[in-house]
């Protein structure tokens, strides 16, 4: 089954990104497809490659990027939400791309499910 994911909060401040990441991994482990994860609201902060959590803490920016590379997931950061929050190409982690909200609607149309994680 194809499952789309929407993440509305940044890493660390809320658990939303952690939950979405664990869910995505479990879905893939069970043989499902996660074609796209869309990042909206503060979710755009998940793409900030400057993030440097303490060494004994998880780094969600890296985890998403690696998961995307391994399983060919399209990580899309909303351009409008990213601009006002100062997430630009210069600081975008590998594996993420900036695009429009239409990609979220498409995710809803093309996937069998859409699961939303937020505050």
């Amino acid at each position, binding site marked *: 089954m194809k499952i789309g994911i929407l993440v509305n909060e940044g890493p660390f401040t809320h658990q939303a990104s952690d939950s979405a990441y664990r869910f995505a991994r479990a879905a893939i482990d069970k043989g499902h497809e996660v074609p796209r994860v869309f990042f909206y609201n503060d979710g755009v902060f998940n793409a900030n490659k400057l993030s440097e959590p303490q060494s004994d803490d998880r780094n969600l920016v890296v985890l998403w990027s690696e998961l995307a590379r391994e399983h060919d997931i399209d990580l899309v950061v909303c351009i409008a939400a990213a601009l006002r929050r100062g997430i630009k190409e210069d600081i975008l982690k590998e594996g993420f791309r900036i695009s429009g909200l239409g990609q979220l609607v498409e995710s809803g149309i093309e996937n069998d499910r859409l699961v*939303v994680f937020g505050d």
Partner: protein
Amino acid sequence: MEPWEEEEGPEVVKRFMYVNRKAPYGTIYALENLEVVLIAAAFDQDVSVVFVDDGVYQLKKSQDTAAIGMKNFSNTYRALDDYDVEKIYVEQESLEARGLTEDDLIIPVEVLAAEDLREIMAQQDVVISS
């Protein structure tokens, strides 16, 4: 092409419901959710927008943000009609708990009791909330 393949094609219309449960200005969710709805309207899908709990405050008339320095986006709800977003539901219980009536709202809506809204929610294909 088999018949079921055609059913899975891009021309299938899905029912999208956008749920607003948060007040405006205190957080950005109301504004950014509205931005999603305006984009979604451009796709040939069935779109409905729901306001429950503090989300009903988004539609309150007479918003004036001059003194807080934030952009007043309440007039943008009027654009929903231009974008052919016509299914706009407001939960009656949420209005009543806040001492509001339909007359307080900036656009015409369909006010529904929880029991009726529940039926409409259960008919959606995709529910997006924030």
